[in-house]
Each structure stands twice: as structure tokens, then as C-alpha cells.
């Protein structure tokens, strides 16, 4: 039986009931979210289930929504079932005050650097990560630059005296 989005949805609701929610299909890719305490359980279930077999972690990153109080950071997993060639997107939301999430490194070796990158840019604290430190930015940096409260420099500013570029 070919694996389709309805079937995945059905399997997930059978297993987790009301806890998995907000099923959508933007551009054909099944998207859903779960409470953040459940992220590893959902990933493990998708990994182990004989009919689902989402065993390839394509991508992992975060998105910052400053206006949504209590769920400012979304951590987005893109998973791929290579046998049936189906992709899905799985999100968990966390508050920015306490951005603690279980690490998926035990399940996917690939998650190691992806989580470090997410920590580096958004400050998501992955619990159980073997080596959670900055990866692309300098170690001395004391903020998380991809958060929306750090805007890029105003392109029209004129107070800067730059000898090299004559601004």
C-alpha cells in the first residue's frame, strides 16, 4: 500500500490522540505539531513504525514568532521516508523564556550539527545534546542573532564613517 498523508495522519492520531494537532498540507507536504515534551516520542514512533519508516532527517531548524506569547520558537523537523518517498514536516513550539527541547542526536547522528546551528542562532537548548556549543558564530557572542529582535543594520544610516567604503 502506498503511503499517503491521510494514512500517516490516521496512524499518528491512533497513537497520540489529541496531542498531535494542526494537520495541514501546504504544497502537498503533511505538516503537524505536537507538544514539546513529546518531540522525541513522535520522532521515535515515526522512525520505528513498520509502515511509516521516517528514518531520514532532512533538515532541522527553528523559526521565531515574537508575537505568539508562550510559543515564540518553532522547531521544525523535515523527515523523509526514502522507501515510499514521502516527506513530512513536524513542528514543536516552545516559549522563548525556557527554550528546552529534547535532543534528537540519539536517533539521528545528523541532528548533532543541525541542533548546534539552531542553538547558535536561536538559543534553543537541546537537552541531552553531547556538545551543545556555537558552531558558525564566534564563541564569545552573547546573543542569538536570528531572533527577530535583532534587526539588520538600517541601510539608510549616514552616521557611520567608513574610510574604506566612504559611507
Amino acid at each position: 500500500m502506498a503511503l499517503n498523508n491521510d494514512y500517516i495522519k490516521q496512524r499518528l492520531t491512533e497513537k497520540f490522540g489529541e496531542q498531535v494537532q494542526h494537520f495541514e498540507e501546504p504544497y502537498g507536504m503533511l505538516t503537524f505539531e505536537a507538544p514539546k515534551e513529546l518531540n522525541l516520542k513522535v520522532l521515535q514512533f515515526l522512525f520505528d513504525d513498520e509502515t511509516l519508516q521516517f528514518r531520514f532527517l532532512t533538515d532541522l531548524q527553528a523559526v521565531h514568532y515574537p508575537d505568539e506569547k508562550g510559543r515564540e520558537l518553532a522547531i521544525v523537523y523535515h523527515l523523509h521516508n526514502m522507501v515510499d518517498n514521502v516527506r513530512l514536516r513536524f513542528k514543536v513550539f516552545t516559549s522563548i523564556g525556557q527554550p528546552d527541547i529534547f535532543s534528537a542526536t540519539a536517533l539521528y547522528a545528523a541532528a548533532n550539527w543541525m541542533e548546534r546551528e539552531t542553538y547558535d542562532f536561536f538559543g534553543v537548548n537541546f537537552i541531552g545534546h553531547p556538545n551543545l556549543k556555537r558552531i558558525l558564530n564566534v564563541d564569545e557572542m552573547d546573543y542569538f542573532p536570528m531572533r527577530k529582535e535583532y534587526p539588520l543594520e538600517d541601510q539608510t544610516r549616514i552616521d557611520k564613517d567608513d574610510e574604506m567604503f566612504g559611507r
Partner: protein
Amino acid sequence: MSDVIQHKNIRLPEGSIEKQTTTLNLGPTHPATHGVFQNILELDGERIISAEQTVGYIHRAFEKLAERRPLYQITPLTDRLNYCSAPINNMGWHLTCEKLLGVQTPKRVDYLRVIIMELARISDHLICNSIVGVDTGAYTGFLYVMQYRELIYEIYEEVCGSRLTTNIGRVGGFERDFTATAFEKIEKFLKEYPAVLKEFENLFSRNRIFMERTIGAGPISAERALNYGFTGPNLRAAGVDYDVRIHSPYSSYEDFEFDIPVGSTGDCYDRFLVRNQEMWQSLRIIEQAYRKVQEFKGAEASVYHADAPEYYLPEKKDVYTKMEALIWHFKIVMGEIDIPKGELYFPVEGANGELGFYLISDGGRTPYRLHFRRPCFIYYQAFEEITKGAMLSDAIIVMSSLNLIAGEMDA
């Protein structure tokens, strides 16, 4: 570290430090690293005990920059990811935009794109494979094939005007039709390149020294490769026939006939062979695409962009002479066009793996969030595991045969 050999016959002088391993800094600017990244190796004699990679030396905050730029201004950023095959990145980005905006491209545009993308793949694989040659001590192949990379760059130049960071094409197609010279050069490439590639293969494939150096160097099993998020030739060398061009076809790849070459052990030699075979397959695709392009008749034969005036930049001569075109040009460049809300992930088969664009648009002039799935950033993590216990000289070959591009790794 139980596998450290205890040197019982060496007597250290009184008071000296009893460290039996050597720490070696490979990079950030070492001639053998081919890019700016650092490897701190712990060596026991010449064997590697552990490796710690440091990346991020040329991080340029592309994802942050992209949050302020309209769609067109992001294309030059994608050039600078994998700069050995910039057109694939450009077109991947344009295809992402087209999917978001709902633009349908004509078949001829798809085929022309396929030609350019496969040329880019060949030039990328050429660099990677010939660098593996250089690192094993064979410089000739590198110099020899460089002429044909030059020819590929001339084709880019003929199509878009630039060579390395191409910024090729537009959302919806190309900026101009391919000139007769461009087609001539493609024809020349198709005619001359097979013999060159054959000769390049003859230099290496059954070369005893090359085989001794690469067979068994940095092997990885299919299972570990999948767990480490390997994609592209490196995953195929480990024996998994995953190719985005086949699994989720874009730009009409479903119209072409080609095979996915796979290896078995995932070592440097297999990676080399897979890349070589992929070049043959790319040639096959280019030949088919070139024939298909020649078959278009009448008005169809000069179509080079989609009919999407609200997203495709108007022609330059109209911009200079007509008010309407000038307004549209300005609106598009400044990002004043309507972009639908949406969230999508679009993968393309980059030269070294699955290049993905995760785009969230909130309907504003710029993306709300754009994330690049950069294949070599993800698979470089495996470096420590696949070089553990190997010789220092193997580490160099592994590094070059993984096709690590610093620009892509650091975004």
C-alpha cells in the same frame, strides 16, 4: 583511548610531559583543506585518534540577510553557497520562488535549465575528482580537465555574462535567449568532452597508486550514511540510490532517461567512481535536452521565459523606453509585488547532495524565514567517524573526496 600504543621502549627524560599523542592543527588555511575550515587532529604517530572540526570561518549570515531582501536579491546570495556549481543553486532558488508564486515554466525553459544545471554538475564533479587526484599526487588530470571547466564557464558567460558567481536566470526563465554561440559551445562540449573524460578516467580508475591510496579510505556503510544525513554522490557511493532528480523531479527531469550510479563501500574510491559515472549520465542528459531544445518549432523555438509579467523582469530595452515596463521593473526589483503567504520546502539535487530551500512567506516583501539545507554542512559531521584510526594522509583524501565547499558549509 585504549587503542593508543604504549611506547615501552621510549624513555622520556626526567620531568618531561608524558603525552604520547600529537595535536595537529589542519587548517584553517592549509593548502590541503581546499577551503577555510579547521580540523584539530589528535594523532598517535600517524594514526588519527580523534578529530574536531571547526567551521564558520566564512559565515556571512545569509539567512539573516535573506530576511530583508526581496526574492530577486536573494539569488546572488545563493551563488555564494556552493560556488563550484552556482547555477544549480540559482535555479533551485528560482524554482522555489516559482512554486511559491505558482508560475508555470514552458518546457523549453525547463530543458535549457537542465542543460545548464548538468553542465554545472559536471564542472563541480570535475573539480572534486581532479582535486582527489591532486591530493594523491597526480597533478596532470587536474590541469587537463581545467580546460573543459573553462569551456563550461564560457557557456555560462555566453548565457548570463558571468562565470563563477553566475546569478543566472530569473524567476520564470532566463534573462535572454541562448545565443547561437552558446549553442555552438554546448555542441563543442558534447563533441569533445567524452574523449577527455575517457582519458581522465584512464589516468585514474585503474591506476595502481591511486587505487592503493583511495580504496578503503574513509568508508561508510549505507546505514550510517543515512543516519548522518548523507545525500548526493556520497550517499550513492555507500549504495543508496537516492537522487532528488528521480524521487521528486523538478524542471522536467522526468522527461529524461538516465541511470543512478551507485557504489558499495562508500570509500573514497567509490565516491570517485560514482562522480565519474555521474558525469557520463549528465552528458547523456545534456545530449537529450539539447536535442529536445532543437526540436521546438515556430514561436515555441524562441521561448525563454514564462509568461508571468508580474514576476518576470521586463526586457531591458522596454525598461529604457516604456513607462509601464519601467514601473514593473522597479516594482519587482524593490519587492513591491504581491507574494502569497505560504510555507514550502523545495529540494534540488545539488552537485554534492540535496540542496533544500525552506521558505516561509508571510505575504511581506521579503521571506519571513529562509533556511538553506546545505548538504556538506550536514555530512561533514561524519568526518571524525570515518577517519578514526586512519592515517593522516587518508584524512586529506577523505576531506577532498567528500566535496566540502566552505562557502556552502558556513552559509
